[in-house]
């Protein structure tokens, strides 16, 4: 069997590995270039340390900044076209979805999945072992069903001093009748292994720059899986697929791609390759773009629709005492109780991450603090003390809010073209009232938490900030999480979905579209682990079909 996998990111690398291990000849076509060696250096000298800034970019395969944003809101979710994909820059936080996240349609919000948590559970375990997740099963079992006897491959990472400071105050308290508990967050970075597991890479040593780059390789990236590929897997970078062809029975016969050498121009050569099976794994927006360009898989008219992200509310303040921010991974714990419950019918649920990196994300600390204190006239020892006092107590709550599937939020093809002459993706995205209600509810919970903690609240949303809006008269703002999904949505009927529960396109027996684009809901969890579980499930299905 000859498989062509389009995209060497998270999902594509996993699918290629399983297929290669099972005798497929696999060609992986990656639009981006090889990773640059100087990512850490670029990170250190970048003025704004945004997620994509350390990585090699090419004119021929631009990253998310080439998406044409038609509003009314901005999706604000970057993705990286480079070997390894956005999984190179990701944060490495891997909570599972909750069982009720698979039934959001029953809540009257968004869509149901054609499979249940129990159906996907074995694949979650497989993904956690393939990626290498550090977590404690007993602790996770307090908010999500984990089978008895299951062990994660690595023990939970130690919590930060901040985590313990918050837990010591809020654990056991209640907000809106919900009992609060600070819970360790599963991490895709190396901790202490359980018996029988051999971590790939170094033990996490606390560089505190996981997003965008871990200098010692303690964080999982798809390059790790690529190093385990069998010799039957061939990777070709700098190959941007621009068209798939199908025969009269709907079978995909041929994949066209444009190959470029130069990072700075659109000069390219044209190629085609034949395949028995094709797996699109190029990112939710890129997969939709390719299907639209090819005029395929769209008998349901759902290709590109149901685009979802996680609007994030940041709230930030000062703890009553120094807690030592900017140490360890970005977030090691969270408060999970608002991810579920009857309120979910009325407003979007949310997951609260405790942010360990001060006000770095929310306010640009410590540079912004220094500038403010200097402008206020502080000099010398007074300045040094004021910076220590201000920054040493900083923390941020990073609250991911669900955005339900809505067919009106969609990817289409823009009139504008990229350097290869291919139409750029265009995104129409609006925050729903449901998501806005969730953002506002999460702000109120945050206010209560700050009160309990005796924290000084410095949260401020101003009309000239990006992604500012008002809801029920209250100022709010959202940030993007980089979690795009829904654009080739999975369902139980070809009439209203693009792929089936195996991520196979209903219209094409040998075409699969994998990744977050298949997800009918994102719930409130960072989606990479679920994407990985789905990818492994699809790969196993392909292997069993070939036998």
């Amino acid at each position: 069997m000859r498989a062509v996998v389009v995209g060497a990111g998270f999902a594509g690398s996993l699918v290629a590995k399983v297929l290669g291990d099972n005798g497929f000849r696999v060609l992986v076509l990656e639009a981006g270039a090889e990773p640059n060696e100087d990512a850490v250096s670029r990170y250190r000298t970048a003025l704004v340390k945004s997620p994509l800034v350390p990585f090699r970019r090419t004119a021929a395969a631009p990253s998310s900044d080439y998406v044409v944003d038609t509003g009314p809101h901005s999706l604000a979710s970057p993705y990286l076209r480079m070997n390894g994909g956005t999984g190179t820059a990701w944060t490495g936080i891997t909570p599972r979805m909750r069982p009720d996240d698979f039934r959001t349609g029953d809540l009257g919000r968004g869509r149901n999945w054609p499979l249940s948590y129990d159906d996907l559970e074995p694949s979650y375990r497989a993904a956690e072992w393939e990626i290498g997740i550090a977590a404690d099963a007993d602790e996770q079992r307090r908010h999500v069903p984990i089978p008895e006897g299951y062990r994660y491959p690595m023990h939970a990472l130690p919590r930060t001093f901040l985590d313990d400071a918050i837990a010591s105050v809020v654990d056991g308290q209640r907000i809106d009748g919900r009992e609060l508990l600070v819970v360790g967050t599963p991490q895709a970075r190396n901790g202490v292994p359980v018996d029988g597991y051999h971590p790939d890479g170094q033990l996490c040593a606390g560089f505190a720059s996981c997003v965008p780059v871990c200098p010692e390789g303690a964080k999982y990236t798809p390059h790790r899986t690529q190093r385990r590929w069998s010799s039957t897997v061939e990777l070709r970078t700098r190959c941007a697929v621009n068209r798939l062809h199908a025969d009269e029975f709907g079978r995909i016969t041929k994949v066209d791609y444009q190959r470029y050498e130069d990072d700075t121009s659109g000069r390219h050569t044209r190629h085609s390759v034949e395949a028995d099976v094709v797996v699109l794994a190029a990112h939710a927006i890129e997969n939709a773009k390719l299907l639209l360009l090819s005029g395929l898989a769209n008998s349901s008219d759902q290709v590109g629709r149901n685009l979802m992200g996680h609007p994030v509310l940041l709230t930030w303040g000062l703890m009553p005492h120094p807690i030592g921010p900017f140490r360890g991974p970005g977030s090691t714990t969270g408060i999970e109780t608002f991810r579920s419950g009857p309120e979910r019918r009325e407003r979007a649920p949310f997951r609260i991450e405790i942010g360990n990196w001060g006000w770095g994300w929310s306010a640009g600390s410590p540079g912004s603090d220094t500038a403010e204190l200097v402008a206020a006239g502080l000099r010398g020892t007074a300045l040094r003390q004021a910076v220590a006092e201000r920054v040493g107590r900083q923390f941020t709550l990073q609250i991911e809010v669900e955005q339900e599937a809505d067919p009106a939020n969609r990817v289409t093809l823009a009139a504008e073209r990229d350097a290869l002459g291919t139409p750029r993706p265009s995104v129409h995205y609006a925050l729903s009232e449901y998501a806005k209600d969730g953002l506002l509810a999460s702000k109120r919970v945050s206010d209560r938490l700050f009160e309990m903690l005796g924290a000084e609240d410095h949260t401020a949303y101003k009309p000239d900030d990006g992604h500012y809006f008002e809801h029920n008269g209250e100022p709010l703002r959202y940030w993007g999480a980089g979690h795009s999904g829904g654009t080739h949505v999975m369902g139980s009927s070809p009439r209203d979905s693009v792929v089936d529960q195996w991520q196979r396109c209903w219209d094409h027996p040998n075409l699969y579209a994998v990744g977050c684009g298949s997800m009918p809901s994102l719930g409130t969890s960072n989606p990479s682990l679920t994407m990985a579980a789905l990818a492994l499930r699809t790969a196993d299905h392909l292997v069993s079909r070939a036998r």
Partner: protein
Amino acid sequence: MDAFVELSAELTGFSAEELRSTGLVEQYRALADGASEAEIIELWYTGVWRGVIPTERAYAEGLAWKAVGVAAPGTSAPGFGSWERRPRRSAR
């Protein structure tokens, strides 16, 4: 006494010895000729010179991080679990 180091120490609240230990005195002296107080402080505290971070060392040695008692992210490996510990107080 070196006039630039003396001025920098007065502005930043870090001793001449602490400033010299960054290895950046010569580079910053050359850059900061004719600069304002605020520019000199920004350079020492954040490694930013007129919108640019000139070298990795400038970022890594930013005094804002030292004032807080932590390493600039992505520059140092304090060790597995180091984040559990009570932060050390470093401000004078």
